[in-house]
């Protein structure tokens, strides 16, 4: 298949994953005072990178993701927004066989003040899991989990496999 068509197909997979996660999130009945309807999943584009520049003391330089995206056409990039506030960024890349989707980077906005504090990992995982199902992956793997984040992954359902990799099995949709 010509490269352009493949690239378009991949773009479709990514936007489908973001859209499906948004629809799933919309089904949630939250207690009064909580509102996740303003959460948006977008690609890491110029708008996201400009908003990222206003983060105080981030660990990673997310500008380099632009180059990674062009090098890895099947990679998935996620900017997690609450209204006009950029609250989280994530970059994911499947391995060659697509059996594993690897989380390369995941970072929430530094500080305690953003409205999606304590929900960035879960929101990112909703999109990643949809993406993994679309491309037919069997596992989501955290490539280099931060030590302090292991309990978060455990709550999300991740386990260490016999090779010491932190993984979550991707389940197919059931009706």
């Amino acid at each position, binding site marked *: 298949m010509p490269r352009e068509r493949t690239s378009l197909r991949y773009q479709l997979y990514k936007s489908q994953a973001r859209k499906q996660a948004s629809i799933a999130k919309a089904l949630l009945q939250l207690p009064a005072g909580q509102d996740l309807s303003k959460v948006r999943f977008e690609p890491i584009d110029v708008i996201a990178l400009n908003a990222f520049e206003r983060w105080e003391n981030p660990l990673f330089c997310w500008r380099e993701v632009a180059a990674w995206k062009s090098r890895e056409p099947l990679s998935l990039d996620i900017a997690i927004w609450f209204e006009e506030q950029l609250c989280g960024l994530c970059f994911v890349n499947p391995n060659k066989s697509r059996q594993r989707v690897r989380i390369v980077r995941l970072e929430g906005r530094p500080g305690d003040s953003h409205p999606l504090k304590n929900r960035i990992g*879960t929101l990112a995982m909703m999109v990643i899991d949809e993406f993994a199902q679309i491309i037919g992956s069997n596992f989501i793997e955290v490539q280099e989990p931060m030590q302090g984040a292991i309990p978060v992954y455990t709550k999300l359902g991740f386990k260490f496999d016999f090779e010491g990799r932190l993984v979550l099995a991707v389940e197919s949709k059931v009706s």
Partner: protein
Amino acid sequence: MRKSIKKSSAKKRSIKTEEKIVSSKLSANQRHFLQLLITGIEDEPNILAGRR
């Protein structure tokens, strides 16, 4: 005799219908994530993954 024109089912499908379809097809992982979204995960660090 007037000929009835049928609308395509795709056009008639509303967003609510789409949501219903999705909800009936949520994987166990997705259902678990939705549960976690209600309360959040306490003490989630800002940095969750990546090479320093």
